[in-house]
């Protein structure tokens, strides 16, 4: 364990920026977001929850996967250049755990998602413990906690004497070696874990309540927007489409993009011929929860929710995932 002052931490981050991109929480027009920073002056060290997780730096909201150039009859395929090595500074334990979930879902099967794998490999996670659970947070109900450093390369917590840093992985050690700081015997103060506790029921109980009228009632207020899926650190669905790029005579250019997509959109599940197996918003909302709590555990052995609480904060009509978990538990009790 090393101990460092805020100034030492800032100097260290400034030196890291020379070699790699540093993504950190910063204020963008009043909103707290993970963004690339060019100076440690831009980094916000004391914060609650960011509006979005840093998911987009590993699974970009928009990614060019291929460019095609057609000059007369000659077709050239251009693969995009790989990005730089990056450090995500100040990632919260929940968001780091969400990347473990994405690992299971995107890398756990063959073929692995090559784009995600490349970014994941090029990324070092520097975690920052939350001193407590914030409004709407429930990470401690999902086998984690506000000071869980298990999913980061280097964990930082704030103690009275300064910031305490410990490396968990080789990547973390390499980064920590650049920091001029004293060794210490101190341990991180335990974070306050008081907060909402909810029970997540096993997949077989979810299956038993699939046809319950509760899902229709729950979805009545749903607006079918995409906010919950885009603020979610584990939602990972994307669409792939080709864009035409403006080009000169004799030259045609296309760009193949993949971009975030949302299962809340009516067209998400529509198939050739126009049939849609999930035409109603209640089916879509139910499916989102089943994906997280029933299908992912069954298929990938991982619950695809980390309790960050962002969907609760972002929902314009107050749909609350913890309330839903409580209802499912109650329904399952009734049936057993």
């Amino acid at each position, binding site marked *: 364990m090393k101990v460092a002052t805020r100034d030492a931490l800032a100097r260290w981050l400034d030196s890291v920026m020379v070699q790699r991109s540093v993504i950190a929480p910063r204020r963008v*027009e009043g909103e707290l977001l993970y963004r690339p920073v060019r100076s440690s002056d831009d980094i916000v060290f004391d914060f609650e929850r960011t509006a979005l997780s840093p998911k987009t730096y590993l699974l970009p909201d928009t990614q060019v996967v291929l460019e095609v150039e057609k000059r007369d009859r000659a077709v050239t395929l251009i693969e995009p250049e790989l990005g730089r090595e990056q450090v995500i500074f100040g990632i919260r334990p929940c968001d780091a755990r969400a990347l473990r979930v994405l690992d299971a879902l995107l890398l756990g099967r063959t073929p692995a998602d090559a784009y995600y794998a490349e970014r994941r490999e090029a990324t070092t996670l520097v975690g920052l413990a939350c001193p407590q659970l914030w409004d709407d947070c429930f990470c401690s109900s999902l086998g984690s906690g506000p000071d869980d450093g298990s999913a980061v390369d280097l964990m930082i917590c704030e103690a009275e004497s300064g910031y305490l840093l410990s490396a968990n992985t080789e990547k973390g050690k390499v980064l920590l070696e650049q920091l001029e700081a004293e060794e210490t015997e101190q341990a991180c103060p335990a974070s306050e874990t008081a907060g909402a506790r909810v029970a997540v029921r096993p997949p077989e109980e979810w299956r038993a309540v699939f046809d319950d009228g509760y899902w229709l*009632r729950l979805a009545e207020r749903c607006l079918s*927007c995409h906010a919950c899926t885009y603020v979610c650190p584990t939602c990972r669905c994307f669409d792939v489409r080709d864009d035409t790029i403006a080009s000169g005579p004799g030259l045609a250019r296309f760009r193949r*993009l993949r971009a975030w997509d949302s299962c809340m959109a009516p067209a998400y599940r529509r198939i050739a011929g126009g049939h849609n197996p999930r035409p109603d918003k209640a089916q879509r909302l139910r499916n989102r929860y089943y994906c997280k709590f029933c299908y992912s555990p069954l298929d990938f052995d991982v619950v695809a929710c980390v309790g960050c609480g962002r969907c609760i904060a972002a929902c314009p009509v*107050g749909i609350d995932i913890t309330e839903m978990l409580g209802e499912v538990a109650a329904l399952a009790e009734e049936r057993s």
Partner: protein
Amino acid sequence: MNHEIQDGIRIRARELLSLGEVGCVIGHERGPRGRVRPVFVHDAGDAGRLVWDQTCHHNLVVYLRDRAAPSRRGDAPLRAGIVARPCDVRALNVLIHEGQVARDQVFVIGVACPGMLAEEAEGAGGSLAEHCRRCKERVPLFYDALVGEPPPVDAVVDAWEDLAELEGSTPGERLAFWIREFDRCIRCYACRQACPGCYCFECLAEQVDPQWVSIAHRVPQKAFFHVMRAYHLAGRCAECHACDLACPMHIPLSLLNRKIAKEVKALFGYTAGADPTIPPPLATFRKDEELPL
């Protein structure tokens, strides 16, 4: 005052549901975290869930497009009761003019509206939201029952002051402003989904066959969507600010709608949904019409 409104809503909802006048009443309830949210009350016994205070900012008219429009299967739609403020009723009026909602399928529980509290000032003694401070309507244009006593009108004159800064800046500065704002848009479409006026079966911004807009989450696509939406709401936006309040990234979207509302007012002397007999100008064609363009 708020308690009278709440009591009035509960009494009316209980009556409507127990008499079978409506299939459900759409109002507000308090969620598990103390925040208000829309609720659908189907049984008279649940009318006690309905609450009302000056944080009940959702425009519930948005839910009527599913409920009070003629059904595709041809069966009679369920009549719905709805709690509505003056701005909500103007949005409803637009939908009725456009044939989206049948007036006789809606029982309007009109609220004599004291205005909503500013988001940051929610709680005791908070100040009114900016858009409510300039609103002169205390009683909805039409209703089937009115709850609450109309509070006095002490609205500030609407001098379109909220637009002054943008109007006073150069086109380059305005563009820079909107690029900054749209940069953090996540294309979640909460603004569109919360808007009663946005009821296209499939939004042009999401259509894939043909695909008009790239799926990229980048500023050009976001700007295109927001500007298009603003134009599609020309003369139709009731200025309820549901879009602003739904945006998880707090983008001041209604500035776009306000600017266009100002233009429509200047050209047509029209305020969206303000008259039960006059249809929206951009949904009207008159051969002899000449505009001072």
